[in-house]
């Protein structure tokens, strides 16, 4: 107790020194609580980070009020359809973590429900990520984030094979531009090894030419951290969901949690916008709202502070690199920067190069808007790198940017993952603070949760568990003979609705009737790539509206672009 008080005073002093203002600091069980007023969001963030930087602080609850601070909005109840249902386990959050956990837990004989507030899976962090499986070289050594990163990275070959998802270990290529930088390369190798990455390859010019042809003549040496991967991230979400469903998990979309009922410090039920579900086991994988769920359950010991990342994507005709491309100058910087601007030059499995993401603290967890500054920053930072290091290749050109997006990372002030049973509430497991590299870590996180549940609940093993899932046919990838056979069997394959990505009507129809069906134009786009090409839906939008309204049996004016009231059209002209 004495120590707690001293620590609280110390933190208070540091915050006062940095912000010039006094806030109240409490310490209990290693959790720092911050209260009071500060003049800006920036100051409140600084206070949180100062508290979080102490080794003796396990987590930070930041209740500091600042002008413009957002309040949580509780969603309105729409039905009671789930009332009376009971599950052995309820997972809150249908991002890659919640879905991976659901699939993992379906190895046990447990009835499982997964609740997702959006009308599709992975709509917050996962689909706004860069679809990259990070090596552990950049993770802070010794943290849980690092442990999950290196363990998860190793698991992807098998997971991607079982789930039938595009996955490629393209590697991160660290190139040296001068002798000074060349001298740093062995250090990069040692850092990777220390971080439990498999031994990277030190490359001479001949080796570099095989991996990344066309480099500038001054580049003579490099390191390939070869375990970096890229993955078809939306297909992965669907794969996890389909596999979980086929192993007995129930998934409820459009379902927000609005309360948690406990009894004698044990989970009893979850109140949702679709009624109350009884359960004794609640897995909090709620991402940006994990602290809110913790609060509902009476175990609030961390605060999520959203950190926005913006990314720009180029047309397929611009593919200057095969690897995640990182000259020493950039690789060294990302070692240092934990919550400042970062980003990289990252290819995707679909062949669209990305620059991103940025890192910008925001106060609104729903803020997915892009900014002029973000785009300029990314372009001005990475375009010259490509121009300099791949001089023979076509210059990066802003007119080749076909999309920009942004998403918020769900960071805590310790900037580490929280994967543990609640110390306060029986039957509550937190899988919180999962930010980058959450995607790379997902299989390891799911496994860790599985072991927590095994120890706590001793569930029996589901003998019928099948880890394998097969994806829908991708018509455009078939050879002409096979395409002909498919069209003869089903002429809708011969009707191409998206001419940029060559997507057929049948694929759109299947996306609308899948196990996790598309409920919006964006949902169709994510599943089929229709509208993701260079014309950005110019040709296919009216056609997909036509097919979707027919297949969903709704008027075109009821069709959504995404969710809520995002109606595509306002009504008939007459």
């Amino acid at each position: 107790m004495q120590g707690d008080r001293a620590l609280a005073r110390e933190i208070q002093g540091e915050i006062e020194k940095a912000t010039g203002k006094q806030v109240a600091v409490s310490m209990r069980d290693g959790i720092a609580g911050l209260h009071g007023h500060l003049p800006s969001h920036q100051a409140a963030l600084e206070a949180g980070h100062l508290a979080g930087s102490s080794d003796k602080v396990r987590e930070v609850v930041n209740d500091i009020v600042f002008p413009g601070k957002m309040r949580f909005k509780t969603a309105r109840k729409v039905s009671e359809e789930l009332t009376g249902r009971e599950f052995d386990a309820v997972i809150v959050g249908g991002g890659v973590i919640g879905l991976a956990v659901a699939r993992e837990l379906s190895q046990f004989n447990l009835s499982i429900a997964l609740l997702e507030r959006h009308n599709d899976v992975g709509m917050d962090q996962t689909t706004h990520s860069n679809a990259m499986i990070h090596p552990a070289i950049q993770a802070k050594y010794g943290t849980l984030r690092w442990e999950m990163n290196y363990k998860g990275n190793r698991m992807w070959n098998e997971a991607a094979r079982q789930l039938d998802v595009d996955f490629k270990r393209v590697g991160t290529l660290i190139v040296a531009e001068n002798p000074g930088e060349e001298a740093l390369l062995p250090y990069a190798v040692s850092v990777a090894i220390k971080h439990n990455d498999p031994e990277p390859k030190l490359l001479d010019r001949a080796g570099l030419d095989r991996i990344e042809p066309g480099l500038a003549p001054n580049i003579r040496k490099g390191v390939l951290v070869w375990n970096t991967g890229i993955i078809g991230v939306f297909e992965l979400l669907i794969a996890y969901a389909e596999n979980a469903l086929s192993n007995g998990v129930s998934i409820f979309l459009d379902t927000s949690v609005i309360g948690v009922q406990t009894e004698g410090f044990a989970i009893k039920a979850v109140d949702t916008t679709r009624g109350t579900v009884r359960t004794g086991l609640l897995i909090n994988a709620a991402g940006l709202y994990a602290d809110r769920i913790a609060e509902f359950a009476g175990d609030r010991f961390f605060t999520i502070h959203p950190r926005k990342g913006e990314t720009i994507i180029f047309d397929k005709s611009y593919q200057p690199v095969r690897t995640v491309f990182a000259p020493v100058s950039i690789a060294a910087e990302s070692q240092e920067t934990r919550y400042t601007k970062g980003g990289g030059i990252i290819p995707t499995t679909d062949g669209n190069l990305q620059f991103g993401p940025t890192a910008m603290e925001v106060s609104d967890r729903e803020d997915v808007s892009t900014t002029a500054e973000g785009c300029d920053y990314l372009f001005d930072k990475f375009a010259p790198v490509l121009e300099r290091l791949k001089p023979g290749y076509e210059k990066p050109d802003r007119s080749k940017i076909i999309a920009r997006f942004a998403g918020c990372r769900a960071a805590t002030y310790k900037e580490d993952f929280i994967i543990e049973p609640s110390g306060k509430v029986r039957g509550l497991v937190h899988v919180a603070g999962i930010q980058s590299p959450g995607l790379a870590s997902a299989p390891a996180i799911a496994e860790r949760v599985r072991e927590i549940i095994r120890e706590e609940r001793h569930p029996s093993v589901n003998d019928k568990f099948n880890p394998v899932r097969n994806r829908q046919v991708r018509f455009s990838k078939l050879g002409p003979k096979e395409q002909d056979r498919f069209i003869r069997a089903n002429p809708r394959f011969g009707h191409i609705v998206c001419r940029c990505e060559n997507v057929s009507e049948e694929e759109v129809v299947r996306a609308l009737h899948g196990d996790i069906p598309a409920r919006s134009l964006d949902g169709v786009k994510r599943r089929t790539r229709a509208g993701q090409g260079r014309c950005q839906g110019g040709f296919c939008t009216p056609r997909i509206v036509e097919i979707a309204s027919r297949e969903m049996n709704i008027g075109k004016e009821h069709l959504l672009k995404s969710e809520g009231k995002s109606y595509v059209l306002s009504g008939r002209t007459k």
Partner: protein
Amino acid sequence: MIREVDVAVIGSGPAGLTAAIHAHNSGARKVLLLEREEELGGILKQCIHNGFGLEQFKQDYTGPEYAERLIKELEKTGVQCFLNTLVTDLSSERVITALSPEHGALEIKAKSIVLAMGCRERTGPSIGIPGTRPAGIFTAGVAQRFVNIDGYLPGKKVVILGSGDIGLIMARRLTLEGARVIGVYEIMNYPGGLKRNIVQCLNDFDVPLHLSHTVTEIRGKERVGGVVISKVDSSLHPVQGTEKSIECDTLLLSVGLIPENELSKKAGIELSGATKGPITTETMETSVPGIFTCGNVSAVFDLVDYVAQTGAAAGTFAARYASGSLSADRRPVDIVAGENVRLLFPQRYGFQDDLVLFIRAAEPVEKPVTIEVAPPGSKINRLYARPNEMLRVKVPKEKLAEAKQPIKVSIMEK
């Protein structure tokens, strides 16, 4: 199954229809027209406004009337049409790969090919606009299709970015259908569309046109809730402090058209950086022998009459190529842009026919100009030169017999 034809035409808009008719009329026996949609006519079907065919037919047709006139003409020829057929690949050996519900995966070997795929709308600036990505952002052409073909209104309070012709036409169309068009915002200091469209689509309906303005932010979470408009300076950068917030539920983009040359690239056809279409001669032949081009896939034309004219040439010469009667006894010479010329079509002269040049000025000149084609030194006078109105000049074949590499085209104040 491999099919063999004399002339294959890809696309059945005004260019493709005209090319197919002319190929047939020039003696090609087996002409095949490939169309990806369920009926012929291309974009004309949704252009229900009038103003088509004033030059060509001396008639004021609407788009569908113009299309139907060509379709009826085509029907008399017996040219075969494959509808719902999307061409997915094209080789320099003139082999077409296509998909269709009716015919399956097709392979077509053609003695000559006419490209008539048209153009697509630019979306670039919308991607560059910071903010959110809600529902309610359309290119003008997509909105036009929703209104005129499907009978649906895209929104009720509309801001239009860019003053291209389709945007202007849609300002009128949406107003007539009961939507409120708040204004048209054009980043340049001159309008993108034709003057008659400014008058008849904007002025007639009291829709204001704001030059040197652009959209700098899109707002709204689910559906567009508003946009921020800013003035731009002479280098087209938004001027800080001029931001104005406008409430609307729809943003229409009319910011230009891009020739759709994905297939041309697959066939290895040389493209022009200026027009973004194939580099051609007056016969419409591209850099790949036997592949011809016409209409908006070659360069974006202002008038359908111009499009049809290139289609006629492409069809005629493609038929001659297929029959082996197209001789190339002289090497083509380049035609290059001189003073105040932004783009030119065609870019080569092959000594086969009169040269009909389409020229777009770089800067507006609101006084009489002389268009010089030299050598041989032809001079043609016009009353003005405007970037938004293509100039068309004809130089007879005889005059060009002495043409030397390169022919330079300039627009000079008189």
